[in-house]
């Protein structure tokens, strides 16, 4: 039995018999080193740590002040204290809501439930630290039609309750297996993905469709369905049948009802069809209830990847015999512990980030060629690209441009003088208009830096379109020009090049500059006629650097 949330700042380190999860993580990761012929690199610096943990738990880079204070703090338990502070903050729940929205909806456009409604619902679940399996069970059963229930139903509703999309995504996102090929035939490469697994899963959702409630909102209804019929595209005449089943699990029993008594109330065009036995409810119970090990394993692997930059099964939805986990025992221990903690997400994440594995530097040990260190060894920290949301918030934080951003939003609203006159007379409407405009800007970032709707975020890549935006976008260029007490305005007021360097590096890259970097900066400032322009050029070069674009 492992313990979660065991280590408090003041507690002594526990002995091996009662090793906490983060100690087990380190032991099992280290046990793998010989396989890849690697050794662990050193612990990351305090600067690297505060940037990484703040991005991971809060979704943005730390402020220059927080970074400076953390580096100066002499307390030996400061990392644990910072972790606990960040986990207790509402911004952790918000960050998890965004991360789970992106994981579960994959940037699909809104259909019946807005992203705001859904994220609010998720955020409440994370604020209250509801067991993750209970949250998922609510998403999968989606039987409630009150406001809360409708939000939870987004997973089905905004996929237009399309059976093929749902089966595939339930497999990928909740069980870590991609059954796409098994939709049409047994998987050609992997003997563990069978055609009947796809159809066994499809029975759970085949009877579901939309129902418009009297209040105009969309909800789900269900026709009782018992089995699915299927045939391989390679042998279309040979039809087979299956009842509901979760992957290789047994076919599940559906109780018999006398004819005419299958429904709570006889369904009509006006009466929502609700069977006495709901297959979605059955799916929710069986998938999250402990008898489907793939669920805990998948969720543990996803949270691990969120923090460690790579799954133990990688890609996250490709768990099959030909793609085994890099650390099978570790994955089993994580899944067991997560399940035994009753899916305590906050406690689980806490253990992950307490580990030395998480706190390793992204810099290879000296004398070792970094390219020879296998990413799946976790001997060196894996770098992650900032998500569109992390990038936007970090850009605003780095350049202290929140005020400039607000002004840009207001300027955009003022473009329509008539509408503006109306808005400025009504505070509530004005706020709503501001929020809508901001959402537009966020959407612009997501379209540019996010994945294709319906696809998971892949490996870090960079496109010319993104880069041109970072280099030349007029709104972004304004954040870098000295104004409204933003970063460059404050830097221009400094005389000494070392002070310039210190403020710029702390604000943008969350660390102190090195001596060589200060001399480079001095050279640059001397070589340029226009000091203000020179400072803007310099700050942009940090913003546009790989060090800023990556969580390292």
């Amino acid at each position: 039995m492992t313990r979660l949330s065991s280590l408090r700042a003041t507690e002594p380190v526990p002995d091996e018999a009662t090793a906490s999860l983060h100690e087990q993580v380190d032991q099992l990761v280290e046990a793998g080193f010989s396989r890849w012929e690697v050794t662990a690199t050193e612990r990351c610096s305090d600067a690297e740590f505060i940037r990484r943990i703040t991005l991971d738990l809060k979704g943005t880079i730390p402020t220059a002040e927080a970074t400076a204070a953390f580096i100066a703090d002499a307390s030996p338990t400061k990392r644990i204290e910072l972790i606990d502070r960040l986990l207790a903050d509402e911004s952790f729940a918000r960050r998890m809501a965004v991360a789970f929205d992106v994981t579960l909806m994959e940037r699909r456009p809104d259909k019946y439930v807005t992203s705001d409604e859904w994220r609010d619902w998720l955020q409440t679940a994370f604020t209250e630290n509801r067991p993750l399996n209970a949250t998922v069970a609510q998403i999968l059963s989606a039987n409630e039609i009150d406001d809360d229930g409708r939000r939870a139903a987004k997973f089905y509703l905004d996929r237009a309750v399309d059976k093929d999309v749902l089966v595939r995504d339930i497999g990928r996102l909740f069980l870590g297996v991609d059954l796409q090929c098994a939709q049409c035939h047994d998987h050609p490469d992997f003997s563990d993905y069978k055609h009947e697994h796809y159809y066994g899963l499809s029975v759970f959702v085949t009877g579901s469709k939309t129902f418009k409630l009297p209040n105009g909102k969309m909800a789900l209804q269900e026709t009782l369905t018992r089995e699915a019929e299927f045939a391989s595209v390679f042998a279309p005449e040979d039809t087979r049948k299956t009842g509901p089943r979760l992957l290789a699990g047994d076919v599940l029993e559906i109780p018999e009802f006398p004819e005419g008594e299958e429904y709570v109330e006889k369904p009509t065009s006006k009466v929502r069809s609700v069977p006495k036995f709901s297959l979605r409810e059955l799916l929710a119970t069986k998938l999250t209830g402990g008898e489907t090990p793939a669920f805990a394993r998948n969720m543990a692997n996803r949270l691990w990847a969120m923090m460690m930059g790579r799954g133990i099964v990688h890609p996250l939805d490709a768990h099959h015999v030909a793609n085994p986990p890099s650390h099978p025992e570790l994955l089993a221990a994580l899944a067991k512990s997560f399940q035994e903690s009753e899916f305590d997400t906050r406690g689980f994440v806490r253990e992950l980030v307490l580990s030395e594995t998480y706190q390793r530097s992204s810099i290879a040990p000296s004398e070792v060629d970094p390219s020879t260190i296998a990413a799946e060894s976790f001997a060196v920290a894996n770098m992650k690209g900032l998500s569109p949301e992390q990038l936007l918030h970090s850009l605003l934080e780095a350049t202290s441009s929140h005020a400039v951003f607000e002004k840009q939003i207001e300027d955009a609203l003022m473009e329509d003088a008539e509408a503006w006159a109306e808005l400025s007379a009504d505070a509530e409407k004005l706020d709503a208009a501001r929020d809508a405009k901001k959402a537009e800007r966020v959407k612009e970032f997501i379209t540019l830096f996010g994945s294709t709707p319906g696809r998971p975020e892949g490996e870090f890549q960079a496109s010319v379109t993104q880069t041109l935006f970072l280099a030349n976008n007029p709104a972004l260029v304004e954040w870098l020009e000295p104004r409204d007490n933003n970063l460059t305005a404050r830097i221009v007021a400094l005389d000494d090049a070392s002070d310039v360097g210190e403020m710029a590096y702390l604000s943008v890259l969350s660390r102190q500059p090195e001596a060589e970097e200060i001399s480079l900066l001095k050279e640059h400032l001397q070589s340029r006629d226009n000091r203000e322009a020179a400072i803007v050029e310099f700050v942009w070069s940090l913003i546009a650097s790989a060090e800023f674009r990556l969580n390292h």
Partner: protein
Amino acid sequence: MTRDPACQSTSHLVSRRSMLGNLVAGATGVGAIGRLVHPSVASEIEKKKKQVLIFLLNGGLSQFESFDPKPNTDTGGPFRQIATAVPGTYFSELMPHTATIADKLAVVRSMYAEKVPGSHGGARDFVETGRPPQLGPNPLMGPVYSTVLEQPSELPGNIHIAPSRWGPRQDAAFLGPRHASLVLSGGRPPLNLERPESINEDSDDARYRLRRIADLRFSQRRRTAHSEAYSASYDRASQLIRKRDLFDTTKEPEKDQQRYGTHDFGRHCLLARRLLETGVTCVKVTHNNYDSHMENFNFHLEQLGEFDRPFTTLIQDLDTRGMLENTLVMLITEFGRTPAIQPDLGRDHWPPNWSVVLGGCGIQVGGVLGATNANGTEITDRPVHVAEMFHTYLQAVGVDPTGVHELGGTRMPLGAPERSAVKELLI
């Protein structure tokens, strides 16, 4: 597969080695050929560099008013058919110029798809990815070509000359943003190509130099795959800024500007020629406004009136410049239009049969494949499924459509595994 040449992870090395093995064994190579195979083999392939030109007629081109006319029937509408350069083959009179180059084209009159989503976007995805959108998202052809035909050049692999208000989108699915289409909205240069007035060239050079130094420092003793990919995107961006004349058709001879026409679509076709001549692998030109639920005949009169001449001019130019034999040309649309003519003279969406046109690289031209019945309500000969066509588009440029994209632990088939290319269309 990860398209990053700098990535040295062992799993990639394995897949590279096995790919090389496949190639040597005679299977058609799938992947970034130029980079992966032995230099001498790569230069062989480079000599025969293939390009692709896609015309997307957005909204649903009517087969009756273009390549499968049915004059004097209950469904045929008011237009006549005209003879083409291929004896016995007739097009609608709305395409007089295209008719003169029918000998350079292959017409498929029996294209179909089943379970097509009602939306234009969904149906378009089916045609452009070769898979039903329910199984997607999958990468569009442009990103696929930019991946499998990628050349060692600083140019973007895949450019979409789009109507106005058509912004950048992530259309590369699992191939990633690196291969997403560079969108020229309204035929204008890419967004943010022009640097703001506050930054002069001097200043730009200075900040790029500082950026590069910062990246070099950061990359010391770290894995370099991410930072090199990031740096490369800045290199490509500054190349593009330097080459921004590439997007300026007024740099083409005045005579050519007149030949193509000064309207948007004419300019877009001339721009496509300019991009192909510079070496861009895949260029797509989208022409809008074919969704004629009302006034189908007036709409097609107007739209095809605009389309016909520049399209023909571009094919002829590619031919006289010796580029056509290495450039696959396709004219696609998301579905056909109904045989039945609605009371307000419209035709609705019709996925059971429509027409597609191919030409250039690898294509058996001068013929018609498939047929529909006398009034165009059903296919009577050689039905061709959209997924078969997707295989054909790849096979035509020498890419094995039964191959896979290697993506870390996952392999994604290029074409739908249960389909294959249409042999009759290929040389």
